[in-house]
C-alpha cells in the first residue's frame, strides 16, 4: 500500500511502486486530466507538479511521489481561476484539447519562476510540450496574458 498526496488529498493505493505515476493517476485514482502521449518524456502531455516541479509522470515512478506533494491539472486551482486558466479561456486556446493539461502545467512553473517571461523564456520553457493541432501561438499569447493577469492581481 502506498500513500500519495494528490491535489491536497491523501490516497491509499495498492500498486507496484515501479508503476509510472501517470498510470496510477489515470487508472487507479481516476484523475484523467493528465494524458498519455508517448510514454518516453518526449511530448509533455503527462506533466504534473511534484513539489512544484514539472515532472513527466510517464517516466516518474510512483515511488518517487511517496511523501511528496503532487498537483495535477485538476488541482491547479480551486475555482478554475489560475491566471493561466483565465487566459486560456480568454484567448480560446484549445483545438482538440488533448495536450492542453500538460501545456498549462508546464507554463505554470514558468510563471511561478518568472513574472515577466520573454519570448525566449517561453520557448525555453515550452519547447518540450507538443501540440499536433498547432495552437502554439495562442499558448504563447495566453502565457503572456496570464503573466499580465498575475502581475495586476486580477
Amino acid at each position, binding site marked *: 500500500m502506498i500513500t500519495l498526496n494528490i491535489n491536497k488529498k491523501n490516497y491509499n493505493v495498492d500498486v507496484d511502486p515501479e508503476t509510472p505515476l501517470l498510470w496510477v493517476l489515470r487508472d487507479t485514482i481516476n484523475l484523467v486530466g493528465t494524458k498519455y502521449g508517448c510514454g*518516453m518524456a518526449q511530448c509533455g502531455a503527462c506533466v504534473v507538479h511534484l513539489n512544484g516541479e514539472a515532472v513527466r509522470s510517464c517516466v516518474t515512478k510512483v515511488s518517487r511521489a511517496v511523501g511528496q506533494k503532487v498537483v495535477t491539472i485538476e488541482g491547479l486551482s480551486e475555482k478554475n481561476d489560475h491566471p493561466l486558466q483565465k487566459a486560456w479561456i480568454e484567448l480560446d486556446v484549445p483545438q*482538440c*484539447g488533448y495536450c*492542453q493539461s500538460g501545456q498549462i502545467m508546464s507554463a505554470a512553473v514558468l510563471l511561478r519562476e518568472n513574472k515577466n517571461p520573454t519570448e525566449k523564456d517561453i520557448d525555453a520553457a515550452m519547447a518540450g510540450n507538443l501540440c*499536433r*493541432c498547432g495552437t502554439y501561438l495562442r499558448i504563447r499569447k495566453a502565457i503572456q496574458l496570464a503573466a499580465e493577469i498575475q502581475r495586476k492581481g486580477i
Partner: protein
Amino acid sequence: MEDIKTNYSRRSFLKSSALAGGGLLISFSALAKFDLDDKVNKLDLPDQWYELTGYIKITPDNIIKIFNPNPEFGQNVMTSLPMIVAEELEADWQKIVVEMGPHDNVKLGPQFTGGSNSMRMYWKPLREAGAAARNMLMQAAAQTWAVPVEEITTKAGMLYHEKSGKSGTYGSFASKASEIAIPKGVKLKDVKNFNVVRHSQKNVEGLKIITGKPLFGLDYKVEGMLIAMIEHPPAFGMKLKSFDASETLKMPGIKDVFSQKLYEDGFEQGGFDTRTFNDLLVVVGNTSWEVMKARKKLKVEWEPAGDTKNTMSGKREVIVPGELESTSTQLAKMKEYANKPAQQLRKDGDPETAFKNAAQVIERTYNAPFLAHNCMEPMNFFAHVTDEKALVAGPLQAPGWSEPTLSKLLNLPADKIEIQMTRMGGGFGLRAYGHYIYEAALISKKVKAPVKLIYSREDDMTYGIYRPMYTATYRAALDANKNLIAFHVKGGGIPENAVHANRFPAGAIDNYLAEGWQIPSNITIGAFRAPRSNFAAAAEQSFLDELAEAMGKDPIDFRLELLKRAKENPVGKSNDYNADRYAEVLKLVKEKSGWNNPENKKYSRGVAAYFCHNSYAAHVVDLVMRDGQPYVERVFSAIDCGIVINPDAATNMVQGAVVDGIGNALYGGLTHKDGAAEQNNFHRYRIIRMNEAPKKIEVHFVQNDIDPTGLGEPPFPPVFGAVANALYKNTGNRFYEQPYILQLNKTSRA
C-alpha cells in the same frame, strides 16, 4: 483519506454537456439549482425534455439543449454547429447547453467528420431545424394566446405578442410545440442579420479541457473494465507465426492472452475498413501499465506473410504484395516507374508537339515520404459486447461507416449496436478508419467483459494507414518569348498518386497533360489532412514559382495571369476551381502581407495558393535562418471559405493548419527498412515544437455571403509550397525532397 474505488457511471461521462457561454460558470436562476462547479461532467440535468427536431430539446424551465451532431476533433464543431441552430432558433447563446449527439443518422444527419464537410453538410439542415423549431414554438404561442402566428416575434429564447403585451419563455411552450408537426420550408434569416453566427463564440468545452475533465476516448471508463493491447508484427509484410505467453500470463493483473483474426477470409471490406495486420495477438489485463509490462514478456515468432488478398465490397479482390519494403528500394522503384507509360488523366490541346517545338523545357521532380498522423491521443476504443447487444465508445470520425462492418463481425443488427462518440484528441483522417473499433469489439466479445483497447505511441506510429509516399514530375514548355505553351504533370506514388488533373493550372494552359501511376504496397495508407492535395500543392506551387522566375515574372502576378486566362478563356470544361475566388485570395494575401513592401526584404518570402475541399487559401511565409536552421517567423494567410461561422475559432484552425504544414514540410516523414518503420516515437519522428512555430500568423477571410465551405483541410496544402519557395529565397537552392530539413542538413532519406 480516500481509498480508491471506481466511481464512474457511463451516463456521467457521456452526458458531456457544456454551457455554451464558453463554459464560464454563469449562475443564473434556472440553472442555479444545478451543481455547475467542477462536477460539470456529472451535470444533473432534468429528465423532462421536449424534443423539437432531432437537434433541440427544451425544458419547461427554458433550458435549451442543442446537440452537436458531428464528431469533434478540434475543429470546434461542438461550438459552431450548435451556433447555427441557435441562430435560427433565436435562442440566447449564452444560456444554451450543448451536448454531443448520440449516433442517430435519422435524427442527426450523416454524422461524419471528414473532407472539411461539417459546415457544408450541416449548414442548411441545421438552419432549417432551428427555424422549424422556432416556428413550432411560435405556433404553440399563437394557439395559446389565440392570436395570428404572423404577429408573434422572438428574441433570445422569448416569444412576444406586442399588440397584447403577452410574452413567454420558449420553455413554457415547449411541451405544446413538441406536439406540432415539424414544418418544412420555413423562411430562414437573412445572413446579414446574424447575431450568433459570424460572431466569435467561445469553445463550449473550453473550461472542461483546461480543468482536466474526462472527455477523450482514452479517458473513458466503466466499472469492471479491462485493458487490452495488441502485439503487432514488427514490420509490414509480416504475420504471426506462433507465440508463447507463459511468462506474460504469470504477470500481475493479466487476465488472458490469445490470438484472434480480425476479418475472416473473403470478408468484404468497405472503404474505411482498412487494416494492416489481420492476426491479432491480444493481451488483456486490469490496468494499462500491467498490460504494457506484460507484453514485453511475450515470446513471439513472426514470419513473412507473402502475398495476401484483400476482398473489397463487390467481392473485388486486391493482391497485397508480400515484399518487405525499404525506403531506398521504394525510391529506386519510383524512379523506374516514372519512366514508364502511365494512365492519362487529362489532355488538352497537343502537348507532345508543343514540347517538341519548345524553345525551353523546364522539368522538375518532387518527392515526399509517408507521413504518420500522430494524433496526440493514441488510438483506442472501448467496447462492451454481449450476445444481445454492443456498446462501443471512443474517438471516431464516422460511426455510420463502421456500423455495417461492426454489425457483420458481431452478428448483431444495427439497432442493437450503440456507438458513442467521445471527443477526439486529434483525427486528421486516421480516426475515419474502423479497424480499432472492430478489434475492441471482438476482444470484448471474446473475454465477455467491457474492454478498452489502447495503442501505445509505438503501436500507433507503426501501424500504417499513413499518408502515401509521393512523387511528381512537372514539365513546362516555353516559347522563344518565354510564354508558357504547355504543361505536363506525371505523378506517382506508393500505393497511389496525388494528381488532381482538373485543378489549376489546368484550364489556363492550351496544351496540358496529366498522368498518374502507382505501385501497390503492403504499407497501408489512408486519408491524411487534405489527401493528395497535401503533396500536390507542395510540388505544383514550388514548380509554378520556378516557372515564374524562368519567365521573369513575379510569382503572384504570374498566377494571377493564368487565373485571368482560366476565367476569360478557359481551356476545357471540367476546371475544378473558381478562378475569381482563387485570384481573390492571392490578391488579398498580396495586400495584407505587404508583398512588395521594401521593409519586408529582411524576410525570405514564399507564396503559394491552393483550392481543395471547396475552399481557397493563399499564404505568404516569411522565413529567416536562425543559428543555421530555417525558421518561419511569420505568416500571412488569406482564406475564402464563404460565410465564416465562428471567426476566432476559424482563425485558430487556419493558424493550426499553418503550423502543421510547416512542421510536416520541414520535419515530418517515415522511412522503412525491410518493412519495419524506422521511426516509432517522437524522438525519431520529429514534430514541430513551440520554439519552431511562427510568432505571428495573420489570418484574413474574404468577406462574402457564400454558403460556408470547409476549413480543416484547405489552408494546409499550400503551406508546404510556400515554405519551399521561401527556402529558395533564403538559400538560393530549390527544395525538391521533403522533409526539407534533410536537404538543409545534407542528409538523405535513402
